[in-house]
């Protein structure tokens, strides 16, 4: 049993202690997690983004063009001081502008066109046609529910009502799926404690 296993087991128990009530062990783990996660993220950004995209091109390849993103990045840091908000706005404007520009073709291709293309296909043969028809009805009725430019009355209102039922089933499925994903993680942690730490369970 290594030091790594003991530390990981201690931290796992610290977090699970919250199930009893909020306590110093949980708060220690919580604060450690925040600091460690932020520190790791910074280190990764330094090694994987700033060194290959700024440090190396500037100091080794003498590419002066990287001074532009460097300047925009440094301007972003001005936001740390109240009076620097105006300077940081330029970096924010650039960043938001780029991602808005990327979003237009990106969302059109990946979300709108791809989903419409899948929806506008011939029905599956045999009994599969019933399911295909249900998917089409669900799609149209949920879209009817999300169409707020007209009041939900008459045929539109009835369609929107059916759309709500489809939405509720989808939300229930998502909820059940999320719970099961969390339970899988819980089982993995309990397995770690019983197998890797305490050796109560046999190995894989």
């Amino acid at each position: 049993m290594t030091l790594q296993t003991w530390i990981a087991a201690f931290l796992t128990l610290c977090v699970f202690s919250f199930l009893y009530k909020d306590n110093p062990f949980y708060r220690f783990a919580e604060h450690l997690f925040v600091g460690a996660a932020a520190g790791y993220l910074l280190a990764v950004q330094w090694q994987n983004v700033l060194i290959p995209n700024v440090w190396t091109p500037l100091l080794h390849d003498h590419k002066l063009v990287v001074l532009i993103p460097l300047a925009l990045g440094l301007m972003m840091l001005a936001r740390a001081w109240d009076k620097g908000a105006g300077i940081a706005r330029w970096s924010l404007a650039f960043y938001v502008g780029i991602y808005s520009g990327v979003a237009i073709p990106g969302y059109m291709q990946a979300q709108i066109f791809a989903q419409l293309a899948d929806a506008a296909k011939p029905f599956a043969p045999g009994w599969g046609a019933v399911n295909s028809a249900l998917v089409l009805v669900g799609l149209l009725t949920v879209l009817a529910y999300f169409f707020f430019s007209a009041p939900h009355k008459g045929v539109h209102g009835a369609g929107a009502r059916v759309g709500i039922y489809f939405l509720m089933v989808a939300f229930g499925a998502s909820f059940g799926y999320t719970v099961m994903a969390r339970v899988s993680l819980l089982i993995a942690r309990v397995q770690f404690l019983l197998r890797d730490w305490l050796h109560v369970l046999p190995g894989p």
Partner: protein
Amino acid sequence: MRRGPLLLTFLSGAAIAALFFIPHYRAQAANSMLLEWTLVVYAFALILGSISLWNSHARKVRNRAEGWGFSVVTLVSLLAITALGVWKGVGEGTPVDWIYNTVNSPLASTMFALLAFVIASAAFRAFRARSVEATLLLVTAIVMMIGRVSIGELISHRLPGITEWLLDVPNLAAKRAIAIGVGLGAVSTALKIILGIERSYLGRS
């Protein structure tokens, strides 16, 4: 004061959207360069977030606020892991890799595992079959939870099939409609930002 940043948003947004449609290699190179620049700005935004985190906890320690000792833990871990990562790297076999596997990974998965209890207790308090909609949500959630584990098949051999059907038919229909709605919303918001109609991201003047 905002005219300059608004113009920059327009130029950068319009340029990257236009470059997407131009297959010439120079246009694609410019596209990649602009995206690399955003990565750099994003990295500095994370540094800004860490400075904010540091300031918040350092203030607690300075003022000896309640629980200031825990803030010391955050400050020390933040500083130590950043320094180690910058100095020794973050690849396999580095001290930061060891810390990640020992501290970050177990803490992250245990925190998410804890959510199983939080979600279950919240559901127990909130879920009531008061209407047709609430009943549909409740029944689907229960079928999904039982149908995807071994006990579901023991209860009824049809349960896994029903679970798959719920995912592949009604769930797919609703998710598809949501995806189309999200896509349309994202494109219209992006257009509003580029054209300077939506300005809230620039904050108050």
